[in-house]
C-alpha cells in the first residue's frame, strides 16, 4: 500500500512578500500564494518596515486560506506547519511566526522553524532527483549575499558573506543613482541589455586572495563618482545622460557584480571540491548571472552541475519553506511555541 503523503503548510513573511504554500513530500507543489508589496514600496524606493508589518498582518490569514483552498485541502490534511523565522525584517518575521504558532496550537500540528536563506537554496534543489553533493550554494538577494558549503539540505555551513552591502542592495542603490525604477534588479538588467558591459571598468572587489566574503560598497561608490565627478562637486549627471550612456553604466555595473559573484563561487567550489553549484535568491533571477555561472560550471574540470532556482521561486515564496521543512519533518526536528523571530541567523 502506498504510504500517505506528507503535506506541509509553509509560511514566509521575512521581508515584503506575504506567502503561504502547501507542498507534499517536499517537492509536489499543491499551491503557492504570494502577495507582494512591491507596488506599495515602489513609490518609496524600498521596503518600508511599518507598512510592511501592517500589510503582513492584513494579508497573512487570507493568504493562508487561499493556499489551503487552491490545494483543496483542509487543516486535517496538514501534517505540519513551517515558518521562516530568520533572518529578515524583525517586524515582518514576527507576523509569520505568530500565525504559525497560533495555527500549530489551534490545530495541534507540529511546528517547524526554517532559515530563510537555507530555504532559498531549497528552491534550487526542488525538482532535482539526483543531487550530487557536496555543493557550494550562493544566495544572493536584496538583503543577503552568502556562500554556503552544502553537505545536505539540512547541513549548510556559511563560507562567506557580504561585509558591507548585499548585491541586491547595490542594484537598488545604483538604480536610484541612475534614476531607474525600484526594484533595481529587473530595471538594471533591462537597461543593461542595450549597454556595453566593457564601457566602464568598474572595480571588482575581491578583498583578499582566499577570501570568500563579498564587498559591493566600493562598486556602488564608483558608480556614484562616475556620475558626479571624481571630486563629488558636480550634480548627478545621470539626469542629463543619453539612454545609451545610462545603458553602458548599467551594463558595466552588472558585469562587475556578476564577475565577483562568479569568481567567488568558483573559488568556494574549488575549495570544498563541490560537484554541484546551487543558486537562489532574488538576484538569482538575473539572466547575466545565470549565464556566467553556467559558463563557469561548464569550464570547470570536471564540469560542475549548476542548479539555479526556477525564476518564479527566486524571489521570496513559501514553497521553499514547506519543501525544506519536509527534510526536518523526516528527521524529526521540530520547534515549540517558544519560537521567536530572529533578524540575524
Amino acid at each position, binding site marked *: 500500500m502506498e504510504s500517505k503523503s506528507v503535506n506541509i503548510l509553509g509560511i514566509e513573511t521575512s*521581508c515584503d512578500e506575504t506567502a503561504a504554500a502547501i507542498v507534499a513530500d517536499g517537492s509536489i507543489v499543491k499551491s503557492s500564494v504570494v502577495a507582494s508589496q512591491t507596488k506599495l514600496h515602489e513609490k*518609496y*524606493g*524600498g*521596503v*518600508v*518596515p*511599518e*507598512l510592511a*508589518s501592517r500589510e503582513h498582518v492584513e494579508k497573512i490569514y487570507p493568504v493562508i486560506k487561499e493556499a489551503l483552498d487552491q490545494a483543496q485541502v483542509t487543516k486535517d490534511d496538514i501534517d505540519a506547519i513551517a515558518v521562516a523565522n530568520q*533572518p*529578515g*525584517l*524583525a*517586524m515582518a518575521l514576527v507576523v509569520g511566526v505568530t500565525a504559525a504558532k497560533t495555527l500549530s496550537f489551534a490545530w495541534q500540528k507540529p511546528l517547524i522553524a526554517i532559515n530563510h536563506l537555507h530555504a532559498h537554496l531549497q528552491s534550487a534543489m526542488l525538482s532535482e532527483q539526483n543531487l550530487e553533493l557536496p555543493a557550494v550554494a550562493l544566495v544572493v538577494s*536584496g*538583503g*543577503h549575499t552568502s556562500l554556503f558549503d552544502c553537505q545536505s539540505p539540512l547541513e549548510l555551513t556559511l563560507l562567506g*558573506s*557580504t*561585509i*558591507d*552591502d*548585499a548585491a541586491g*542592495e547595490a542594484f537598488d*542603490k545604483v538604480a536610484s*543613482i541612475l534614476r531607474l525604477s525600484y526594484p533595481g534588479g529587473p530595471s538594471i538588467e533591462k537597461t543593461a541589455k542595450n549597454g556595453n558591459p566593457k564601457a566602464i571598468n568598474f572595480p571588482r572587489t575581491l578583498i583578499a586572495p582566499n577570501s570568500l566574503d563579498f564587498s559591493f*560598497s566600493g562598486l*556602488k*561608490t564608483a558608480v*556614484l*563618482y562616475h556620475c558626479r565627478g*571624481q*571630486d*563629488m562637486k558636480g550634480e548627478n549627471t545621470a539626469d542629463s545622460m543619453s539612454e545609451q550612456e545610462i545603458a553602458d553604466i548599467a551594463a558595466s555595473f552588472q558585469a562587475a557584480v556578476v564577475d565577483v559573484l562568479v569568481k567567488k563561487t568558483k573559488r568556494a567550489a574549488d575549495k570544498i571540491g563541490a560537484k554541484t553549484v546551487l543558486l537562489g535568491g532574488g538576484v538569482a533571477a538575473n539572466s547575466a548571472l545565470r549565464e556566467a555561472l553556467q559558463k563557469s560550471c561548464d569550464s570547470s574540470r570536471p564540469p560542475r552541475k549548476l542548479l539555479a532556482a526556477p525564476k518564479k521561486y527566486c524571489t521570496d515564496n513559501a514553497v521553499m519553506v514547506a519543501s525544506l521543512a519536509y527534510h526536518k519533518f523526516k528527521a524529526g526536528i521540530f520547534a515549540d511555541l517558544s519560537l521567536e523571530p530572529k*533578524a*540575524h541567523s
Partner: protein
Amino acid sequence: MSEQLDIVTLSPEETIEFGRKLGSQLKGGEIIALIGQLGSGKTHLIKGIASGAGAENSGSVNSPTFVIVNEYTGRFDIFHIDAYRLNTIVEFEMLGFDDYCYPNSIVIIEWADKIISALGTIDYIRIELEHKGQTARNIHIRNFPKHFVLTENKHI
C-alpha cells in the same frame, strides 16, 4: 557636552581607525547620529566604532539597509539603525527606538538626517561625513563628551 572636531581621513582604513578610537571611549548610553550621502563611509566608520566599543562580532558589521536594525553584542549592546528606507518619524518610532536606549547600550543611526526631528532634545553625538576625494573624507564631529581624546588629525 559641546566639544567639536573636524578631521580628514585619507582611506577607508583611516576612517575605521578613527571610529575605533571613538568607540573605545564610549561609556554606554550614547546615541550617535551619522549623516552623509551614499558611499561617504558611514558603514566603515561604524565598523570601527563597534570594534573600538568591544563588539564581539564587529567583523560582521554590514549595511542594515534591508533589515533596518543590526545588533552587536559585547561590552555594550550596540544597535546599528539604518534610516535609509524610513520615510516618516512614526516609522522610526515604531522600530522601538526608545527601547534601544538604555545605560548599557549604544545606538548608532545611519541616514540620521531623515529622522533627526525624532531625536528632539535628546543629547546625541552628531557626525557628518563628506566626500573630499576618491577615498578621502571630511568628518565633522559635534557634541561629543569632554573626556574624549580624539587625536587631531595630521591631514588637516
